[in-house]
């Protein structure tokens, strides 16, 4: 690990200690996701329906990965990921439709806007401090975002539709397979970023913030800084996810990004395993895929029971999630900053 001895001057030097990062790890994680994603391509090509579900899985995988950054590392229970995602979606859609900007630009601005709003959310969360007060304040914030968008005539309750397909310069991703490959590329990139974040000192300190804020402060670090960075980074990824969702579906409605969606993202993150790299992806496959499987087996009527029960059982018996649980049994194939933090303790 990159973390060495702690002295007072480390703050600036080691904050983003990318030079000493073992780049092989993020590359390996990204490659792992890439290979996993490519294996599914034949299914996507051969069935429109499977392809559509796969697109959803990827988009929720991206959003949940972003959410996981703020949930998992600094342990901040921010309860408004849907609001951050819809901000990304709305900004990107409006820029594309009204100003005709290219998708790559609107996507980035969407993500950045979400990140800016995320920094305000992070600042509030840091000031507020207490976990459940953060939950409720961010829940309230999400409601306000919903009211604001529904009441804004550019968006309204029926939302925005008719935005262009995702594109990259001259490449326009119109067919399902093209969109799948594009989204997969984004997810691979996100995986790379999350892993790099995790393996950097930044990630380690974010974990430390979640584990023992006082101790971290006592050895000369400012925990607020790592909370801020984690939430802003997470918000950026969420905003990107929301923008992708809007452009791939051609529709973004404020009503589709409220508490239900937040809970879904939370469930995906928790089910897969907080503070794991692959957890949000596994969670997305399960939570988006499970309903489809349940339906195709003819148990559609019992779906809420199955989802509800899954939720309860996982929380009770697999508190560190599926990937986290596997990790507990088989060692650290997906260790999220934990061993690095152990050094500090």
């Amino acid at each position, binding site marked *: 690990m990159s973390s060495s001895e702690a002295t007072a001057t480390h703050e600036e030097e080691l904050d983003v200690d990318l030079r000493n990062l073992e780049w092989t790890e993020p590359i390996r994680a990204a490659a792992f996701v890439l290979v996993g994603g490519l294996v599914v391509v034949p299914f996507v090509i051969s069935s429109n329906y499977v392809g559509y579900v796969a697109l959803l899985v990827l988009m929720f995988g991206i959003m949940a990965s972003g959410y996981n950054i703020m949930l998992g590392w600094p*342990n901040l*229970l921010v309860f408004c990921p849907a609001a951050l995602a819809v901000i990304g979606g709305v900004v990107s859609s409006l820029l594309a439709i009204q100003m005709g900007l290219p998708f790559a630009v609107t996507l980035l601005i969407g993500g950045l806007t979400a990140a800016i709003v995320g920094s305000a959310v992070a600042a*509030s969360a840091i*000031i*507020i*401090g207490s*976990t*459940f*007060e953060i*939950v*409720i*304040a961010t*829940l*309230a*914030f999400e*409601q*306000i975002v919903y*009211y*604001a968008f*529904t*009441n804004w005539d550019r968006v309204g309750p029926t939302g925005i539709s008719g935005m262009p397909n995702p594109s990259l310069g001259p490449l326009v991703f119109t067919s399902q397979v093209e969109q799948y490959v594009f989204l997969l590329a984004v997810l691979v990139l996100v995986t790379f970023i999350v892993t790099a974040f995790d393996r950097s000192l930044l990630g380690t300190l974010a974990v430390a913030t*979640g584990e023992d804020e006082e101790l971290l402060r006592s050895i000369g670090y400012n925990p607020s800084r790592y909370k801020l960075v984690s939430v802003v980074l997470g918000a950026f990824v969420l905003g990107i996810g929301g923008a992708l969702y809007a452009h791939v579906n051609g529709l973004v409605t404020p009503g589709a990004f409220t508490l239900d969606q937040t*809970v879904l993202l*939370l*469930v995906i993150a*928790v089910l897969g395993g907080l503070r794991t790299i692959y957890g949000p992806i596994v969670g997305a496959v399960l939570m988006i895929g499970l309903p489809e499987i349940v339906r195709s087996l003819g148990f559609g*009527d019992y779906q*809420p*029971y199955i*989802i*509800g*029960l*899954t*939720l*309860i059982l996982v*929380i*009770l018996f697999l*508190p560190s999630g599926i990937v986290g649980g596997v990790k507990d049994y088989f060692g650290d194939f997906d260790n999220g900053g934990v061993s690095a933090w152990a050094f500090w303790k």
Partner: protein
Amino acid sequence: MVLLESLINGLIQGSIFAVFAASFTIIFGVMDIPNMGHAALFAGGAYVFYQLVNLTGLPWIVGLIGAVLAIAVLGAVVEKTLLSRLYGRKESEYVFGVILVTIGLARILERGYAQIWGHAPKYIELGNLQENSVQVSGTSVSHLELVVIAFAVANFAFLYWLINYTDTGLSLQAIVQNRELAIMRGINVDRVFLIAFTLGAAMIAAAGVLNAAMFTLEPTLGFSLLIKAFIIVILGGIGRVMGAMVAGYALGLYEAFAVLYLSSYYIYASEFAVLIAFFLLKAIVLSEGEDSLIAGLKERATSLRQGVAE
């Protein structure tokens, strides 16, 4: 005239808010975390009543007792079998653990109600309380509305007695004020948790029956109240039943009067904005260890006055 009518509207709405929030805050205050399944228990009480009275034909008082008992037992079972397993976890895991388990439970219950009783809104008859009304300076108030207000008053009188004059109440207060000390002082926390959850469930079942009688009964009954309850409970002080009463009536009156001037978007958005402002203010104003915003502000005002006097 408008003012009187709005006042009555506000009192009735406030009674519903206050009762819902009171039962919510007992659980919230003791367990430190919201029960997201509270709305499902609320609807559950009303459905049990509907089954016993409207479908089976039992007298309404039997239905009411049956509803309260059934949901109290359900609450106790949930606490014992699900939530008690989470108490040992560290804070953030405990928080999302309880939130997610109760959300999961709510989904199961809501689907269950829909499958047993259908999605169609149901009417509940409480004797003939709905039909008869009295005139209050030209404004008509139904007997049911009077009963709702009376129930709220009785409910708070009972809670006031329970909290201040019984061992259970002292235990509840002790846990809300300082959980660790309560454990050291020999309060049986497991037992109090169970009591709090059962009591909260019993109260919400009765409130659910009254609410369904005033409006209609649907599987998702009470979800909008749950969101209001957050606002009320937080502004009133978590775990403070009398605070929930004051904040509940305040919110009811605010909505009744605000609707005369504002569209509902702005009313709701303003409520949530106040909530966030409250948290921020509390965090900025209060130093560590202080709990009550009002007490903290008072203290600062005093010290400021003294400073000026000197």
